[in-house]
């Protein structure tokens, strides 16, 4: 009965979380070893644990660690944002990329860069601008969808419209700006970890930690569980529906903005990760889904980043951006979701 199922569920959550953490650890180690100079796993371990390795290896590892951390955190951040957006829209296809928040965040950032490229030196500022853009984009998509009747389909369609418009706008703005940027401007459009600096991952880590603490302190996971069964069901359990949705949207957009400001627009992770967690769990219980989404999102991006780097070894044409790989993995997954949800 419920007692047994719940107890078994908690144990299962523990096991799943543990195995995802291990997966992430293995992928991270793997990701550190792959690159233009291959470093063997024993070397990495001796460097990390004992601290015995030569200067060059240490330097390369340091650089790669920054990238891998950025990739892992981007994945985690986007996965949490995606899970929140799917919850508040009660829509299995929602995510920061599809609803257009990523694109509007980048458009806001590019517009600000057009005024002054110097702001790139201030991470807090760029994150705030991208956050404002993400929030406006989310509100825009939701408003358009409400005008169109507020159905699940209208939300996705208006998100696609917002997304298309603002990725066009940011593309145009960045095109104008490209001579003044240090990295190829395409990297911001599709998301790449190659331009990430050592100081960047801590921003993502701190924001992710703060967001999780805030979600927990406000009781958002349980509130979202109740909210999934309708506004009046949540209200009947004593939740303030507007507050729950606004707080979740705020956190989701903050995380989206942070990821866009640091690595650019990485698509589909926010969509795929929550679904992976649902498949593992068999339910959308947000208390478990948020944790598992975060871990699977991180694993997914670290894997994608490694693939991107490994791929560029054979190309000798510079680096394949992270977002390209996540799109190649994510888009078929989206198609699969559309087919399965349409069939039901």
């Amino acid at each position, binding site marked *: *009965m*419920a*007692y047994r*199922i719940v107890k078994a569920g908690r144990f299962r959550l523990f096991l799943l979380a543990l195995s995802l953490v291990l997966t992430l650890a293995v992928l991270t180690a793997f990701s550190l070893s792959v690159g233009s100079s291959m470093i063997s796993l024993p070397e990495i371990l001796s460097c990390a644990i004992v601290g015995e390795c030569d200067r060059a290896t240490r330097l390369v590892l340091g650089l790669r660690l920054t990238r891998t951390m950025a990739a892992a955190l981007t994945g985690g951040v986007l996965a949490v944002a995606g899970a929140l957006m799917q*919850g508040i829209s009660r829509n299995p296809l929602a995510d920061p990329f599809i609803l257009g928040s990523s694109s509007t965040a980048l458009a806001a950032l590019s517009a600000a860069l057009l005024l002054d490229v110097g702001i790139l030196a201030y991470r807090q500022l760029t994150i705030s601008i991208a956050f404002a853009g993400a929030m406006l984009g989310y509100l825009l998509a939701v408003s358009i969808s409400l005008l169109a009747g507020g159905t699940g389909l209208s939300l996705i369609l208006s998100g696609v419209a917002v997304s298309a418009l603002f990725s066009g706008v940011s593309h145009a703005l960045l095109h104008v700006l490209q001579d003044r940027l240090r990295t190829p401007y395409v990297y911001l459009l599709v998301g790449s970890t190659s331009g990430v600096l050592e100081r960047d991952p801590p921003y993502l880590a701190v924001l992710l930690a703060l967001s999780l603490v805030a979600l927990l*302190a406000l009781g958002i996971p*349980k509130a979202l569980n109740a909210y999934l*069964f309708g506004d009046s069901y949540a209200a*009947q359990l*004593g939740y303030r529906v507007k507050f729950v949705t606004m707080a979740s949207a705020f956190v989701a957009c903050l995380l989206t903005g942070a990821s866009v400001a640091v690595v650019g627009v990485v698509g589909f992770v926010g969509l795929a990760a929550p679904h992976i967690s649902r498949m593992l769990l068999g339910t959308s219980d947000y208390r478990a889904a948020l944790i598992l989404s975060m871990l699977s999102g991180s694993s997914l991006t670290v894997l994608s980043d490694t693939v991107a780097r490994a791929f560029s070894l054979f190309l000798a044409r510079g680096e394949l951006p992270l977002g390209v790989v996540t799109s190649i993995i994510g888009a078929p997954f989206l198609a699969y979701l559309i087919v399965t949800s349409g069939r039901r």
Partner: protein
Amino acid sequence: MKRWGRWVSFGCGGGRMPAVRITQRSSAGAREEPPLLREGASDPPRTRARPVTEGERRASVKLEAARYSYDTVRAVDGVTLEIEGGRIVCLVGPNGSGKTTLLKLIASLIRPSSGLVYIDGKDARLYSPSEIARTVSFSDPHLPRTLPMRVVDFILTSRYPFQRTLQYFESEDDLRAVDSVIEELGIAHLLERRLDQLSSGELQRVVIAAALAKRPRVLLLDEPSAFLDVRSRFEIMDVVRRYTRERRAATVVALHDLYMASLYCDSIALLSRGRIAALGAPAEVFSSRVVEEVYGVGVKTVRVDGTSLVAIPLPPRSGN
């Protein structure tokens, strides 16, 4: 919070509770509550008043000239109604007569545009949302089911009002309360299914289980017997009646099925265009002409087994 605490101490055995209990959450006392499942689960539907549990205070709900309008439509138009604990009041009436709106008013999901709602003698506006959430259950089978959730997850949400904000998982008491309801409604086999994989009859049982898992003092059910087969209708209404009697809950049920209404309701409020057209025992209401006028069909009353009077609507005569 304190006021709720007082109720709770009543709920878990009245005077025997030390006064310290006042600050405790009600979930703490759930173990001492009388079990929901009692022997004689298969009582015939016509059995009336069961012995009332000692120490359970009678709940009460009162509406005073309550009005509510959606834009220009007056859904509830000056309803005065008193519901005392331990009795089932049924709302019957044609579609759009204001049954669901009335339930929502009592559940404080909407506030009356004029008039008042009292719960346990106190103006409903004076309760905090979480107090209302612990006191009132409103079950509505129309649930969005776009994201996959299991039945057990859904039923467990109804215990959230009894948990602290920072409490991440259910307490043992929450699980016990849920388990007793699950056993009573016979839905143990559905727990691990997803909500979107249930038939409408199964969903109906699950929704009622969630409503009862709160152990509410005020139980509001919207069409609990819809989508159910004949046997399940009796079973569900038996559960509702047993709960109402044992916990002295104030139960309001919106029903379309006049037959079920005449069997299970202690009194009937016949609604017509947001007003109460008739109020009284089923036998009185169904034998009056008003019910025929409101529905526009004939209603025949039949005595079954010499005791209970059941209402049977007749097909309207065409061309007349």
